[in-house]
């Protein structure tokens, strides 16, 4: 072909086809729209909601810690004052003694110290009268020691020093006989302003003491262990035990996953479409064993080991099988084309260490745990076959040079949110169902592989809880 003819042919095709326009079917836009929505929904909505949820859980947790430690309870109590038998609360300033002392000689009632706002009466009544007083508990927040509440605590303490007899600064005590009692730290100091009367039961007083770290166990009568500033005979010692619930949870169940494949290199986009089209879910399961311990009232930390086995089936079209139906004369009477598929089932294993903050509600034997936190993925690997850039099915470990698997990671991070709905059959045994979601923050493919892969797991586990001790 001469140069002119070649040129003529090229020019002709260019003239006819360069500006050639053709109207695409409307379904193309629908497909684009759904793809964009899927990307947006996955990338922004879900990730954003999970992040917002986790952040909210953390903020609520911090708020709860702060407020519950700051003002733990307010109770209106009936005060019965009797000349013969008036009970006041005297609190030693040592860290490990709280006493309720019954005195023969009534003392004048205390002036209201800095808090609470309603002051109890100072007036001494010869006969039994009912008086209303508000009792508040203040404490120093361990999270925010320099906060306003800490200063309230300090001012109250100062006032307490001035009137030690009638102040009622409570500090949870140590009971050496209790097998689980431990020394109370200085940050656990709390103070009850106001006073109490002999009519009040010990349990009333117990409820006024800081519940966020200690739970009342029993009250015993014991001799006074330290000299009192004023005279007295009988002393009640209140025994507290730190919240130290310990239990083990074992859960197992199925899960489904939502996968996000993306790449910053647009040339791989076609392969991503192909993989997404080819994928279908198979049966996947997970199991976990978690240790659960209390850090405050109704607040627990959970951690342990979690395992996921994800099974994905890929069905790739690989060429077209053509069948010819030939008659006795050897003529082809029919030609049947059928797509040929390569089918692989890949297995993806994940080993995780979750770290959850859990808040618990309980009604009788029913309990609900709201768990949120992070999950550290220390090993994940996908095994099986994938199509490579050239469209050839290859074993996963041979996709990259040097035999490196593209989907093997030793450090991943995800956010988790789950809910335990359970029933306590026995003091030690309970069972629960646990729906949950886990969102991977980091892609699970190696840095060298241009296709990044993230997952969201939706779990539904069944489990049992065994309480080691309360």
């Amino acid at each position, binding site marked *: 072909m001469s140069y002119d003819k070649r040129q003529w042919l090229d020019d002709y095709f260019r003239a006819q086809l360069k500006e050639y326009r053709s109207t695409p079917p409307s379904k193309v836009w629908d497909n684009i729209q759904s793809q964009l929505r899927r990307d947006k929904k996955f990338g922004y909505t879900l990730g954003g909601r999970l992040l917002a949820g986790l952040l909210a859980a953390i903020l609520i947790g911090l708020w709860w810690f702060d407020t519950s430690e700051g003002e733990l309870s307010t109770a209106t109590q009936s005060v019965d004052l009797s000349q013969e038998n008036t009970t006041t609360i005297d609190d030693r300033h040592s860290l490990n003694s709280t006493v309720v002392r019954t005195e023969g000689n009534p003392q004048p009632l205390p002036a209201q110290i800095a808090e609470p706002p309603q002051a109890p009466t100072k007036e001494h009544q010869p006969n039994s009268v009912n008086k209303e007083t508000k009792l508040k508990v203040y404490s120093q927040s361990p999270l925010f020691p320099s906060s306003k509440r800490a200063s309230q605590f300090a001012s109250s303490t100062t006032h307490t020093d001035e009137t030690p007899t009638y102040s009622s600064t409570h500090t949870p005590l140590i009971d050496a006989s209790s097998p689980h009692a431990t020394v109370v730290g200085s940050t656990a100091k709390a103070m009850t302003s106001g006073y109490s009367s002999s009519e009040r039961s010990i349990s009333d007083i117990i409820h006024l003491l800081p519940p966020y770290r200690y739970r009342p166990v029993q009250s015993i009568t014991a001799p006074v262990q330290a000299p009192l500033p004023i005279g007295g005979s009988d002393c009640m010692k209140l025994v507290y035990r730190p919240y130290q619930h310990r239990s083990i949870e074992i859960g197992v169940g199925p899960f489904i996953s939502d996968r996000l494949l993306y790449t910053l290199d647009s040339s791989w986009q*076609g392969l991503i479409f192909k993989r997404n089209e080819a994928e279908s879910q198979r049966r996947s399961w997970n199991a976990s064993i978690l240790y659960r311990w209390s850090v405050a009232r109704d607040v627990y930390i959970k951690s342990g080991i979690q395992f996921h086995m994800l099974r994905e089936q890929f069905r790739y079209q690989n060429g077209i099988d053509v069948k010819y139906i030939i008659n006795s004369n050897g003529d082809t009477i029919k030609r049947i084309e059928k797509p040929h598929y390569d089918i692989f089932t890949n297995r993806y294993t994940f080993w995780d260490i979750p770290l959850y903050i859990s808040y618990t509600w309980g009604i009788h034997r029913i309990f609900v745990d709201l768990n949120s936190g992070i999950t550290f993925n220390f090993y994940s690997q996908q095994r099986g076959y994938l199509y490579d850039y050239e469209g050839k099915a290859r074993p996963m470990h041979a996709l990259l040079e040097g035999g490196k698997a593209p989907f093997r990671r030793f450090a991943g991070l995800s956010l988790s949110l789950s809910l335990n709905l359970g029933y306590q059959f026995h003091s030690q045994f309970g069972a629960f169902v646990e729906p949950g979601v886990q969102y991977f923050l980091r892609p699970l493919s190696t840095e060298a592989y241009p296709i990044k892969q993230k997952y969201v797991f939706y779990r539904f586990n069944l489990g049992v809880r065994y309480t080691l001790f309360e």
Partner: protein
Amino acid sequence: MRGDEKCQRQLYELYCEEAFGICRRYARNDQEAEDMLQSAFVNIYRFLHKFEGRGSFSSWIRKVIVHNCIVYLKQHRHMYRTIEISDQHYATEAADSAFSNLEKEDLLKMVQQLPDGYREVFNLFAIEGYSHREIADKLGIAESTSRSQLTKARRLLRNLVIKSKNLVL
């Protein structure tokens, strides 16, 4: 634009016909062209922020679509067996004159019938105006391969014209 469906739709309506025309030239059939178009527009929306304002927007879109088509074909090549057609001599004067009577759709169908490599090179060289060196870079082939594939593509096209017109050689 990235999250605004209305703007995305407007952009699509503005360029979809031109884009689909390009995709059809590179694709083997219309189904494949639709896939290419979908993939191309998703990429356009995704990488719209990379358009730096140098040159016209329509030429940027055109480049993205062409690039996308090439990548798509590269990734889907395994699905079709490439038939190597022997380099026969079909050229006649009659074939040349036959071109002028063909409709655009007919020409397009001829281009679609070319083997992948030939079609890509022919589209890039004859229609898009790329040089052999640029084509070699884009497709990851040697320049000489590009040249020989172009020659074969031209001959095949001429052959197809002859067949379509039932011209007797």
